[in-house]
C-alpha cells in the first residue's frame, strides 16, 4: 500500500470533472420534475448532446460552439418528448424510455464519421498568479469554463425556484396543475419550457463527457450516467444543493476508489466498486429524513378540459 502516491490536489480536481456531467443532467431533470414532468429520456438527450457537441466542436474548431450545439441538440430532442407528452398527451414513462432508445440510435448514426477523431481541447481558466497558487489553484481556478457554469447553474436554479415569481409558478404547476390552470397560468407552455431546459442541460452534460472528460466520441459513451442522474434527483429530494452534493459524492467516490485501487489499498475491490452508489444513496437518504415529497403532479398529464 502506498497512499503517498495519491495526490489529494489532483484528486479533488479530477473528482470535480467526474461529477460535472452528472450534475448538469441532474439539475436539468430537477427543473423538469419540479414542473411535474417525468422525463426518463435523460440518457438519450445526453448522448445526442455528446455527439452534437462533438461534431460541431470538431467542424468549427471551437469547443464553446460545440457546447452551444450540444445544448441545442439536447433541447431539440426533448422537444419531441414535449410534443408527445404535452400536446399528444402520451404516457410520460413510455415516451421517456422511447426517447432514450431513439437518442442512442440517432447518436450512433450521427457519430459514424467521428470515431477516432480528437476534439479541439477546451481552454482552462487561467488567471495570472491565481491559477498557479499551490493547492487552491488547481482545485478552484484551473478548470474549464463549463465546470463553473454547472456550479453557477445550481445556484441559479436554486435562487430561481426559491425566490422568484417564475420559480413559484413553476412549482405551482408541478404541485397542482389544475389549480395553476385555474389561476390562469399556461401549464403546458411552462412545462414545455421546463422540458427544453432539461434537454439543454442533459445535452451539455453529454458534451462534457465527449469533449472534456474522455475526450473522444464512442457509441454509447454515456454508459448510464443519465439513469444515475434520474436517481440522483429523487434521492436529492428535488433540491438543487443536494443534487450538487450527490453528484460530487458520486463523482468523488468513483475517483477515490480508483485511486485507492491503484495505490494498492487492501480493501476488497468489490466494495470499492460499489461504494459510489452505496455512499451516495446512504447520505442522501439520511438527508431526506425531513420528508420532502415529490411534486404532487409528477408524471400526470394535463389537459385544460379535464
Amino acid at each position, binding site marked *: 500500500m502506498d497512499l503517498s502516491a495519491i495526490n489529494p490536489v489532483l484528486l479533488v480536481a*479530477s473528482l470535480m470533472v467526474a461529477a460535472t456531467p452528472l450534475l448538469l443532467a441532474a439539475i436539468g431533470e430537477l427543473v423538469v420534475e419540479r414542473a411535474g414532468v417525468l422525463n426518463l429520456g435523460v440518457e438519450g438527450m445526453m448522448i445526442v448532446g455528446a455527439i452534437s457537441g462533438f461534431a460541431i466542436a470538431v467542424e468549427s474548431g471551437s469547443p464553446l460552439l460545440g457546447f452551444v450545439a450540444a445544448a441545442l441538440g439536447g433541447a431539440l430532442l426533448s422537444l419531441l418528448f414535449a410534443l408527445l407528452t404535452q400536446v399528444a398527451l402520451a404516457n410520460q414513462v413510455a415516451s421517456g424510455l422511447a426517447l432514450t432508445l431513439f437518442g442512442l440510435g440517432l447518436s450512433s448514426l450521427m457519430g459514424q464519421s467521428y470515431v477516432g477523431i480528437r476534439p479541439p481541447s477546451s481552454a482552462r481558466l487561467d488567471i495570472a498568479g491565481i491559477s498557479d497558487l499551490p493547492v487552491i489553484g488547481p482545485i478552484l481556478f484551473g478548470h474549464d469554463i463549463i465546470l463553473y457554469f454547472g456550479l453557477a447553474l445550481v445556484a441559479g436554479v436554486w435562487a430561481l425556484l426559491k425566490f422568484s415569481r417564475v420559480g413559484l409558478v413553476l412549482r405551482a404547476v408541478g404541485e397542482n396543475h389544475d389549480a395553476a390552470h385555474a389561476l390562469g397560468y399556461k401549464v403546458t407552455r411552462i412545462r414545455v419550457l421546463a422540458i427544453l431546459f432539461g434537454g439543454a442541460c442533459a445535452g451539455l452534460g453529454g458534451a462534457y*463527457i465527449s469533449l472534456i472528460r*474522455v475526450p473522444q466520441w464512442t457509441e454509447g*459513451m454515456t454508459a448510464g450516467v443519465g439513469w444515475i442522474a434520474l436517481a440522483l434527483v429523487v434521492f436529492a429530494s428535488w433540491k438543487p444543493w443536494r443534487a450538487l452534493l450527490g453528484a460530487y459524492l458520486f463523482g468523488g467516490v468513483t475517483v477515490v476508489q480508483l485511486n485507492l485501487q*491503484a495505490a*494498492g489499498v487492501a480493501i*476488497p475491490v468489490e466494495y470499492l*466498486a460499489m461504494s459510489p452508489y452505496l455512499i451516495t444513496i446512504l447520505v442522501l437518504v439520511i438527508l431526506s429524513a425531513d420528508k420532502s415529497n415529490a411534486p404532487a403532479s409528477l408524471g400526470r398529464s394535463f389537459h385544460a378540459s379535464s
Partner: protein
Amino acid sequence: MKFKTFLTGAAVALGLASMAAAQDKTTVGFVYVGPVGDGGWTYEHDQGRLAVEEAFGDAVETVYVENVAEGPDSERVMTQMALNGADLIFTTSFGYMDPTINVAQKFPNVKFEHATGYKRADNVSTYSARFYEGRAVQGHIAGKMTESNIIGYIGSYPIPEVIRGINSAFIHARKVNPDVQFKIVWAYTWFDPAKEADAAKVLIEQGADVILQHTDSTAPQAAAKEAGGVITFGQASDMSEYAPLPRVSSIIDNWAPYYIARTKAVMDGTWESVDTWDGIGPGMVEIGEISNAVPEDIKAEALEMTAAIGAGEYHPFTGPIKKQDGSDWLADGEVADDGTLAGMNFYVEGLEGDIPQ
C-alpha cells in the same frame, strides 16, 4: 440500466421476428457486449461478421444484437435469436457463458459458439485467442520504454483471461527491467468510456507512464494522449488512430477466418463441438504495427519475440516462474499447460495486491 437493456432487447427481438421468414439461408447470429462502434473488442467481432457476409454472399444472413448485458438479458436475446431461426450463434463475451449453455440445452439443433469461456456441450463450442502471447510482446516493450518504472494496467473483471494477460505482461516487463512495478485498477466493466478514461487518468496521476488496458473502448488512449508523455497499446483492435503516440503497438483479434470456417461447417453439416484456442501462429492474434516512437532495437526484439512465439519456439509462460506467494509454479524450462492457463486465478511472483475474488 436494467430496464433500458430489457427494452433494447425487446425492441430488437421485434426486429428479428420480421426476418425469420427466409429459411433456406443459413442464419448466423452474433451477440455483442458493447456497441459495434467501440473501436475495440466488439468492433473486431463485427468485422468477423462482415467477413462472413462477404464470403458467402446471399447464402447466409447475419443478425446481431449489440449492447447486450451479461447475465439474464443475454439469455433472452439468444433465445429470441434461436426462435427466429438462427442456425449458428456466436456469443462474444465471457459473461455469456452460462446463458449460452442454458439456451443451448433448449435448442439442441442450433449450434452455439461461446468466446473466451470454458464450458462446452454437444452443440456449444468454445473459442478464444491466446491474447497472452501478445501481452508478452507488450510487456517487453513496456518494460523497456518506461522511465518511471510504473506501468498502469486497467483490468475489466478478475477472470482468468484478464489475469493471464497481466501475468504475461508482467513477466516480460520484469525480465527486461527488474525495477518495474504494476499498478492494477479493476474497472468492473468491459465498456464505459468515461470510467476507463478516469482509470487511465488516475494511473497517470500516480506516476504510470505506460498504460495497458483490458477494456474495450479507446477512451484510455484519448486520456493518455491528453496527458502526454504516456504510451499505450491498442486492445483487441489496432486503434491506429492514436498512433504513433500514445499508441505504440497493439494486439489485434482476427476472428474472420474462424467465423468463416465455422459458418462453412454448419452449411456443410460437418459442425462439431470443439475447443479452439489459437494465438499468433495461426493468425488469430496479430501484433499491430510498432510505431516509430519505439527505438529500433526494442522494435527488433519485439518482432523477434513475436516471430518466436508464432513459430512455437517460445512460450510466454516458460519456467522458472513462481507464484505470488513464493511457491513454485513452473520449473526451469517447463512450459505451462493449457488447463492451468485456462483457469488461471493467481498472480506470479512480484505482482502486488490481491486478485478480487
